[in-house]
């Protein structure tokens, strides 16, 4: 029989000292994180690809990879900021193209300098995104179905207005950005993606709006009852998504030296895959409430790298996709194995 403890009224600070705890340090948490896993995979595959084909690390290859990754990263960011609300934006491509075409029109038809033209394009992106947000909030319908419909309307309106014609008279200064090399390997586009990534990270970590968007995404009802204007936050997230999509679109304009209606394929659907790959590999929950900007960045980068590596290895042209799929599976499984190994052996 146990002793009945008497009169022990220990004074303690329950927040830190009780019960006996083995606190996880920030470093340990990082080792368990998705981001660390992605870094490991990126290093691993770099070694593999480089040892098979030394050209993989050539200046041109690295430059081209960074440039392609930059666009995929921006597309991923665009979807990410909506995913964190627990929603989706099928219209990233449609909005991206609409904004980019508007930017092209401003430069060609209205003869604007590229800076205000880009600004105008971003505004269009914000407006189109906000339109989605308002419709989702007002109707109470899932963003999937709303953005599915508006993607068709927006893209269709763009095709109707432009009659599917491209705008070629892009200011040379702007299209130079798409070809410029910093230190022989770095594209200004990748630099832009990094800067935007840092800004997003800051916004979702330190600003009220960012945090409120996350809260709304995690549990809309609880957020609403805590005094957060959930509808407004969802609208903000969609507007931001629109802006980021247009950044991706403008990157393509700069790179192609023209604004073309087909830059994201029919209805902008070509962007859907990269839009999901980055955020999902990056560990953002599709149910919302959790964001990983670095994860999205690394996820998009990993996929671009795998594709580049596979193309370089000259596996049978038609089979590339199979190998890409298998590599993705392997990547996911490796990461899983890493985490369960660490956990099982209590290494973290």
């Amino acid at each position: 029989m146990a002793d009945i403890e008497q009169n022990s009224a220990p004074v303690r600070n329950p927040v830190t000292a009780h019960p006996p705890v083995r606190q996880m340090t920030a470093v340990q948490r990082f080792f368990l994180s998705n981001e660390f896993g992605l870094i490991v995979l990126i290093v691993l595959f770099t070694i593999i690809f480089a040892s098979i084909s030394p050209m993989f690390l050539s200046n041109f290859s690295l430059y081209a990879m960074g440039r392609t990754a930059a666009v995929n990263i921006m597309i991923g960011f665009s979807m990410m900021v909506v995913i964190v609300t627990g929603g989706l934006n099928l219209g990233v491509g449609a909005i991206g193209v609409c904004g980019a075409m508007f930017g092209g029109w401003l430069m060609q038809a209205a003869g604007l300098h590229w800076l205000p033209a880009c600004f105008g394009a971003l505004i269009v992106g914000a407006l189109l995104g906000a339109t989605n947000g308002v419709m989702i909030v007002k109707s109470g319908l899932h963003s999937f179905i709303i953005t599915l419909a508006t993607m068709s309307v927006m893209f269709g309106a763009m095709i109707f207005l432009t009659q599917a014609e491209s705008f070629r008279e892009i200011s040379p200064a702007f299209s130079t950005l798409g070809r410029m090399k910093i230190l022989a390997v770095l594209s200004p586009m990748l630099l832009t993606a990094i800067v935007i990534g840092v800004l997003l990270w800051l916004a979702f970590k330190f600003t009220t709006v960012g945090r409120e968007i996350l809260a709304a995404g995690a549990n809309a009802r609880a957020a609403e009852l805590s005094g957060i204007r959930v509808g407004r936050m969802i609208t903000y997230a969609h507007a931001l998504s629109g802006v980021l999509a247009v950044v991706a679109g403008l990157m393509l304009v700069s790179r192609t030296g023209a604004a073309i209606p087909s830059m994201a394929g029919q209805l902008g659907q070509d962007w859907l895959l990269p839009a999901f790959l980055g955020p999902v590999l990056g560990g953002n929950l599709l149910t919302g409430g959790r964001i990983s900007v670095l994860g999205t960045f690394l996820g998009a980068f990993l996929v671009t790298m795998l594709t580049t590596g596979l193309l370089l290895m000259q596996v049978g042209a038609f089979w590339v996709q199979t190998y890409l799929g298998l590599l993705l599976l392997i990547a996911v499984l490796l990461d899983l194995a890493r985490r369960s190994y660490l956990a099982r052996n209590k290494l973290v």
Partner: protein
Amino acid sequence: MSQFTFQAHAVTKTFPGVVALDKVNLSLTPGSVHALLGENGAGKSTLIKIMTGVHRHDAGHMEIDGTLFAPQSTREAIAAGVGVVHQERNVIPRFSVAENIFLETLSADPWKPINYPKLYRDAEHWLDLLEIDADPSTKVEDLPVAKIQLVEIAKALALKSRILMLDEPTASLTQHETERLFSIVKRLRDDGVSLVFVSHKLEEVQEICDQVTVLRDGRNACESQPLEGLGRQDIVRLMIGRTEQIPTWSQRDCRDRDVALELRGVATQAGHTDVSLSLHKGEVLGLYGLVGSGRTELAKAIIGADKVTGGEILVEGTPRNITSVADALHQNRIGYVSEDRKSEGLILMHSVLDNAGITVWRRLQNAIGAFTDRSVEKAVSPVVKKLEVRTPSLHQTIGNLSGGNQQKVSVAKWLAANVSILIIDEPTVGVDIKTKAYVHELIRDLADAGTSVLLITSDMPEMVTVADRILVMDEFQIRGEVINDRDYDRVSHEIMQHIHGSSEVAAE
């Protein structure tokens, strides 16, 4: 040879950063009701989850009838005759009551067509037994919370287990439903079932249990001991290491002070037609009523989460049109502590700090709308400390905290919000006795500091301890007012009279 049905020896379980159970022993005998007690976060639910195959223990072992018992899944535990009503609700909302009750047996023969008429008939038996007034074909999502709890109990009973564990089954039940449950518990006990009963209501424990195990900080404070001979204070001392301190406050009358919140003939979409009340500065106004009397709905209407369809709401004497909780919080400094912490009160996937701080972000933000976690920490940690929220750190995911500690945070975040009017709905459901006293103290402190509190609780002793004045609500109407002179018998009698009086009127 062991005389026990079930034995746990030195069971240990750690979560990242937390030792939830530290060499815990437990012995159950057939035909007895075993109380499992302890403060919030002591490890009760963890032990139960290990016994039912939800978690795996790290060390120690368990036996049933002398053979090793180490369930790897819920199915194995059920097969071994261990049934459970978990602390958190676990139903399939879109499924009918009957399907939920028989969910365990449903998957036994995957290809045998379900005979729905028969399923409904079988379910009737359990519904009748627990006096649940619901059609077996109703979807569970259409039921009120208390009934869902009863459905869960029916579900556990339907398994006809040898060991049945009830983790705070009465937290959201009325007295009547609790009595019903107890008569069933007694019958099962007499049939030789071994029951485990978890509750923070010690009166219930003393009424129904014959053995007791107390956990403290994940360790046995006592181990499978007869309850007989242990008084309330003995148990309390085992749980918290000292005797209970029941705060008492003298009678207070704030009716001559300014009115902070006034309702004039308020009608709501939820069903109120004509509610008038005034809450004075620094007053604790109780709103008592039976389950379903419309108190929560009234609170939601006041804070703008539900539609007000008529009448007037005045804050500090001026009529206000509050259309959202944000309005209520930022424009009118009104807060609301929800009774449903899981879906309305907390964001389970976020950290303790994010949950406690959610109401202060806007207050702390600088010119560009940014704030630092440190400033939030500074704002919330006094309340978090005061309530002794048991968490390895403020960065712990709140979903990993014990139920009672979650409840504390859902109260804490509104204490941190610095509002002038606070509506508190059932603040101590599932909260241990020590914390309950802290919560009461906090409410009083708030009132003393000038905050006006509208306290909704179905816990009569709590009401009599804390409120200055009590309004009685029944069927969406205020039936009467009671001045609280802390005379429990008189006050409770008067309250019940208002309720019964109204039902007599209604019957006429």
